[in-house]
């Protein structure tokens, strides 16, 4: 009986201590640097003479399609991460006959006081045995310019996430699926990107267009879902956002149509009894 009392008392003291310490840790500012990396995993590290460049993504890898990438720059001599660099990047596909780049965003600081910089790159094609991607990172710290380049691994995606094509207006476009990365049986917020190929190296965002969405399940007699909202831009230069309803798990083909500001269809078909899929589509499976 006595020992039971002792154990009970000990338990309460332990519980109280745990509560106290866990509360106090909320104010601890030193943990913010580690919090920065929560949810992302390092998949590549390369360096020049002065710095090591670390690349992170949610999946811990890259693949064909839309990729959100975070960067950290570590000073080799001090081991500190650079917080005040101006960063830009240039991905290049080295094909047998030519080189080209792909759609990409500016590189911005993730948080004002953090060490991470981030942006996105849309690899419209995957590497193969003879053709590969590399990434050149240019950055300036206190007026001094640096650069570092490395080959990166961009395998083909299991499902189609990006499409590059020539529209009926003769312009070459890239359309890529960005969100949701973890689709649910629900109304999902979908984000798609639309870029055009100005030349081999420049792929600016296309503004003011519309992407029509028609999700279908080919295995279920082309079952579709209600209350989808076509994707439009909320901000100039941004991604196209819409609503994507998924009524069950499994394989979905998201049939798309790209419309210009005048409402002309540049690519893709409306799904009917006879037209069961659009020539412009992305795929998800969950």
């Amino acid at each position, binding site marked *: 009986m006595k020992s039971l009392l002792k154990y009970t008392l000990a338990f309460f003291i332990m519980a109280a201590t745990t509560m106290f310490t866990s509360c106090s840790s909320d104010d601890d500012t030193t943990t913010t640097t580690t919090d920065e990396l929560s949810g992302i995993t390092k998949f590549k590290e390369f360096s020049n003479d002065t710095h090591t460049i670390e690349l992170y993504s949610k999946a811990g890898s890259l693949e064909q399609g839309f990729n959100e990438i975070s960067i950290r720059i570590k000073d080799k001599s001090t081991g500190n991460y650079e917080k005040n660099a101006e960063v830009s990047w240039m991905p290049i596909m080295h094909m047998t006959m030519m080189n080209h780049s792909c759609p990409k965003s500016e590189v911005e600081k993730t948080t004002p006081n953090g060490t991470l910089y981030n942006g996105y790159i849309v690899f419209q094609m995957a590497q193969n045995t003879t053709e590969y991607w590399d990434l050149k990172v240019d950055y300036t710290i206190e007026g001094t310019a640096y650069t570092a380049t490395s080959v990166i691994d961009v395998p083909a995606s299991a499902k189609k996430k990006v499409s590059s094509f020539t529209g009926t207006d003769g312009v070459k476009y890239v359309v890529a699926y960005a969100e949701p990365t973890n689709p649910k*049986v629900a*109304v999902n917020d979908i984000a798609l990107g639309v870029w055009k190929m100005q030349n081999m190296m420049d792929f600016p965002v296309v503004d003011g267009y519309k992407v029509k969405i028609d999700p279908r399940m080919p*295995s279920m007699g082309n079952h579709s879902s*209600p209350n989808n909202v076509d994707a439009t831009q909320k901000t100039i230069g941004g991604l196209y956002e819409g609503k994507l*309803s998924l*009524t069950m*798990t499994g*394989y979905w083909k998201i049939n798309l149509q790209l419309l210009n500001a005048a409402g002309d269809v540049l690519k893709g078909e409306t799904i009917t009894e006879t037209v069961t899929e659009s020539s412009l589509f992305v795929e998800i499976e969950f």
Partner: protein
Amino acid sequence: MKKILFLLLLNGLVSFAQEQKDTLVPKDLKEVIIIGKKAKIHEKQSKSLASIDEFLDKSSQVDLIKRGAYAWEPIINSMATERTLITIDGMRIFGACTDKMDPITSYVEVSNLSEATIHSGQQGSCFGSTIGGAIDLKRNQNQFGNQKWDFAVNSGFETNSRQKIIGSSVNYTDSLFYVDTDIMFRDADNYKAGNNKEVLFSQFKKLNFSGTSGFKFSQNKLIEASLIYDKATDVGYPALPMDVSLAEALITSLKYMVIPKSPLLKDWETKVYFNTITHRMDDTKRPSVPIHMDMPGWSETFGMYSKITGNKDNHHFLINLNSFYNKSVAEMTMYPENPDENSMFMYTWPDVRTFYTGLFAEDNWVFNCHSGLKMSFSLGSHTNDVASDFGLQSLQIFYPEMEAQKTRLLKSIGLNYNYNKNGLEYGFGTGYSERAPSVSEGYGFYLFNSSDRFDYIGNPNLRNEKSIETNVFFGYKKSKYNVKISSTFFRISDFIVGQPNDFFVPMTIGASGVKLYTTLDYATIFNVDITTEWKISKQFQWSGKIKYSRGQDSNKNNLPFISPVSYQTELKYRCQKLNAAIECIGNGAQTRFGSFYEEKSTAAFAILNFSAGYKFNWSGSILYTKIGVENIVNTYYTTYSDWNKIPRMGRNIFLNLGIRF
């Protein structure tokens, strides 16, 4: 013995059984199908080991929707599961199948039951809200008495489906304690329709065990525990695209009963109960399915009621406080032909929790020995809560503003007058009642209806359905003959029904479209039946009944599953230990069918049945034999209540044997 007046219906025989001990008897107008005390089960029924469905089918107030040879869905006053209330000894139980393949009646066995009490319309509100009426399946009630063991063995065989029935019961009674146990097993192959064509996927196997034990621990207090375990396997549903590999139920209860010393109160009964049902649909045996799918469902219910009855002057009153908490979950997983593709999963019932608490009160005010007025009212609180986030988000695809919880208040009130003097009897009544949408109507997700071939989506925003009903009956009874006509009329506003929505693409492969549950302005349902009986001589007795129903919605469309003119007539012979009967059952052609609801018409039919029974006695043991032929001329027919017009059984010879010792 309780002094009650029941309106008896027995094999189409309508008669009054009145105990003349007390002239002040409340006349409760309800229909009671006597299935028989376990010990006497064989004495009165022409087919003693008929299924519970077949027993209910004999009632003039109950019809059954048939999706195969097993688990028929009862309809009362032309209304099916959603609008009616089926209880076992007052216990609320909810089927676990989204396709209504497991009505509550499928989880009991006829050998467990002593009677089925049918209340029409609002008068059935004792254990919850109902519009169409209620059936309470009452189990055998043993009496304390002299120490006694009772054993029985029952067995049966039916030629058409090669159904084999075997069962036994063991009962023990003494002055303070009793225990009743009963076990029954049925195994049937496919049945053959009238053209001798086999109806594929109409087989079933069912095992049922029931046990009840009571203990009297003081002069006026009793505690009783009971358990039903029912397991059906390999059940075919020829009218549906899927079968059932398992339907399993465990139904338990604990009852406490007091006979209060106060002269005001007659008895006070309190029961707590729990039941759990597992139901697994199965399409693996079907030769060609567009996509293979698993559709399991689970239903669990905790509940209690406390019911008190008493008398004060001319008032016979009943008060029942009842409550239940039900959890209904059903899933669907579909397997694409490409094995590399992920399986497709959804909740078809998104873990819906229903919590109901209600109060029912009834007063039978007996004016004199000829007339009385019954007043009843009920008030209940009904809350639905979608517990699965996955399921809630799925439904929010259709209803973005939908919240997980919804509470409703359900009310009902009824007044019924009756008069009975010198063989002349009549009565009339009126009532108002409300009901909440069922789980499927409120929260179902792509539930395929194989009759109209639409996928159904529930609607959590449905208003309560409200019904105003009137009923009237008129009868005349003499010692040799009697005749009775009775009728009910319902005007149901905010009538819940699925309506096609062209914007939505169906999920089920081959479905015609998607229907959303919505409310129609109103619908009207009218039922009338005439029953008559004539005792021709001491041995011969003739009875007949004829029935007609009519149902229309506010757009003047006929409702589906409404009976055309139907009739039954029977000539019985009884002489000491021998009894025999010949019966004719038929329907007129169904001309007013629900074409708007994709219902097709049904042709007229008539079939002939014959049965005979004999009782042998020797040295304290009794052997009953029942033999009969159903559908003697092997007619090929289907009725308005056969799902997808599957044909009914052709000629069938049955033999039932029972030994009691």
